[in-house]
């Protein structure tokens, strides 16, 4: 039981912390609201990104984030190097 909890914690840490550690960028088209929040977005901003993706399809460029409601230029500048889009 303890080992299982440790494994779950390790997975969660890897998922949420990897982008922050620069190990790998977060895939914008697969990211959950929780993962986006872990990058520093507010819950509302993260929810807007997920909603935008559902309504308009996958992001075609990271720059497309700029047309998501509630996405300011400042927030985008903080986020753009932490996410990527499958090409």
């Amino acid at each position, binding site marked *: 039981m303890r080992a299982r909890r440790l494994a779950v914690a390790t997975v969660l840490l890897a998922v949420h912390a990897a982008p922050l550690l620069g190990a790998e960028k977060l895939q914008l088209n697969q990211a959950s609201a929780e993962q986006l929040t872990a990058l520093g977005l507010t819950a509302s901003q993260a929810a807007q990104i997920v909603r935008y993706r559902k309504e308009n399809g996958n992001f075609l460029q990271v720059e497309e984030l700029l*047309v998501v409601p509630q996405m300011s230029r400042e927030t985008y500048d903080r986020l753009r190097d932490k996410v990527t889009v*499958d*090409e």
Partner: protein
Amino acid sequence: MRRHLVVAAACVLLTTRAGGADSVTLTDPTTEWQNLYGAILYAGSATVHNNGGAPLRAVKVRLELFDKDGKPVAHADGYNLGGERLNDDPAALDAVMPIPAGGTDKVRVSIDKTEIPRPFRTATLTVVEVK
């Protein structure tokens, strides 16, 4: 209206390749994602310069998107502002306002997101026809 702009002039390459287009140049290129009342567009704009010695009726410009391997992803054509009527009525050439010799005009071309089938990395604005 919610409209966010991103200037990505660095990834816009300008070329002229159409016959008669040697006397035309494009400057101040920008590309940007736009959200126009919920319609998501990728738009390019520039200034058209008529460097020749005679007026031009219209200049057709192509916005083309390329993936990371340089393969074309999507494109759209459009006329300079004075000739935009030609987008709907190609036969209305005599009705458009010409660009005088040495003059300039704006051009804007956009592609609806639904017409872009996959991610892209770069965009070009190219003169494809001069009338």
